[in-house]
């Protein structure tokens, strides 16, 4: 390669890099625009020209959303249901994945196939049946009703099973030699090894549950039982449209997951790649 061609290649490379960065900024711009608009007074929001930064900086819309609307209740509903889903799904999947991977029992293989098969059925097809089920249990408009149909994430069992399969058998044999009970083997040997996987799976399960829209939307009709993702789209101000107010509610709804992602970036991307690799 002559120096001239190398330089030309570098120029092209630089151009591609710059385009990528520019495009990334453009990509995220609507999010920035939403946040900035929510920090402007209502009359500034509707000005006919573009202002990338508020003239008058105000948090009054947030104060309004938090004090005058039911957003606090919705937050509570979202947090309670998403936490319940996360804890129940991850713990039941952990136990089940461990049993399938490490123990010999009679219906091990059929159970494993059943879990794999449940991948193929999109959960939405059952939504009307879930509705009937939850209605017949009298759980509409309750936390339990929101949680129940969201407890099935076969991906998590599969990730756990594969993780446990990858642990060398020596660990297990040593523990059995020491007369450790099955429970001790699980909690003292296997679980400490997979804290990374567990936190990653827990974070994405939480994000999935927080973001769930369709089911909570169907299962809840009372505004005080709505989760935040449903609430902000269903309840509008009675008198006219307040753009900035609505946007501040949107920012509040997106904030927890956005923060969770930015803090645990590596874990989140890891868990999502992991679950997708299996899905394929």
């Amino acid at each position, binding site marked *: *390669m002559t120096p001239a061609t190398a330089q030309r290649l570098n120029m092209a490379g630089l151009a591609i890099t710059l385009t990528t960065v520019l495009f990334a900024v453009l990509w*995220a711009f609507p999010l920035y*625009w939403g946040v900035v608009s929510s920090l402007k007074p209502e009359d500034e929001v509707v000005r006919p020209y573009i202002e990338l930064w508020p003239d008058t900086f105000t948090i009054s819309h947030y104060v309004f959303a938090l004090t005058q609307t039911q957003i606090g209740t919705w937050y509570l509903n979202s947090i309670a249901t998403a936490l319940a889903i996360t804890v129940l799904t991850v713990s039941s999947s952990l136990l089940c994945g461990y049993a399938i991977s490490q123990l010999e029992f009679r219906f091990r293989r059929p159970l494993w196939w059943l879990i794999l098969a449940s991948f193929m059925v*999109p959960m939405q097809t059952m939504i009307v049946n879930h509705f009937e089920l939850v209605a017949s249990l009298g759980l509409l408009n309750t936390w339990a009703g929101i949680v129940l149909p969201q407890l099935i994430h076969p991906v998590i069992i599969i990730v756990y099973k594969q993780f446990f399969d990858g642990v060398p058998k020596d660990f297990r044999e040593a523990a059995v030699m020491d007369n450790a009970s099955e429970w001790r083997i699980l909690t003292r040997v296997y679980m400490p090894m997979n804290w990374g996987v567990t936190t990653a799976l827990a974070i994405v399960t939480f994000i999935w549950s927080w*973001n769930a829209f369709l089911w909570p939307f169907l299962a809840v009709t009372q505004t005080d039982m709505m989760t935040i993702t449903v609430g902000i789209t269903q309840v509008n101000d009675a008198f006219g449209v307040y753009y900035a107010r609505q946007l501040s509610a949107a920012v509040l709804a997106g904030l927890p*997951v956005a923060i969770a992602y930015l803090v645990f970036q590596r874990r989140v991307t890891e868990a999502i790649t992991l679950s997708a690799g299996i899905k394929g």
Partner: protein
Amino acid sequence: MLRNKRSETWIAAALVAPFLAIYGLVFIYPTIKLFMISFTDAPLIGSGAYVGFENYTRLWGERRFNVALWNTAYFVILTVVPGTFAAFAIALGINRLAGRLQTFVLALFFLPYILPVSVVYLVWDWTLNFQFGIAMHIFDMLGMNRVPVFKSTTWFMPAVAFITIWWTAGFSILLFLAGLRAIPAEIYEAAALDNARRWATFRRITWPLMWPVTALVLTIQLILQLKIFDQVYLFQQVDDPTITLFSFTTSSSVHFNPTRAAARRRRQSCYF
């Protein structure tokens, strides 16, 4: 290895029990019921007589079903292939970056994916707002007439498709990045020694080696977009022309009109 078979079975049963209980209630029972019921004339809630395949055959004649089917197909065409290739191109760009800049750029592309659909909806409803939306300034600059995007039947689907690509691309980008990182650096070094051009390297090395990942992303996208409901429902302001297969199946549970319940049961069966 020493094993106590009997006690192991009991332990296994105890460990599997919580999952099985949930699974049986929320998955197995409804699946069987759904399958059985698609052969009966049951209303939305309750049971009915056996009618064989009638639900499936009548489904094809229903106008709204056909509209829904076509809308879904249209939406899939608009999202799956363009979305996958956009994500591929972005992943190629990100893969060239390094260190903090790469993390930052990836975060910008990935952030929308992590957000709830309702936030995506509010942000874009604002961005594309007919009177005050910032995107309308682009229309003005191009000297075009402003378009009330979500009220126009021609613009609705492309707009929602575009927003869907924006929303979900982060996920596909992640998969492409994982694939790109798995390609051994030696292959590129060898190509550089042979003085291969950038385009030739891409055409002969990256593209063929990435094809399995591309196929995977296309499949995942296809499955995902066939189930489209949330975005279309939220943005929807005109009913009939914009229904999709899925909103069609659920419109039943949203509106509760008992007189048309049997028809809905048929719709539900269209997923098999």
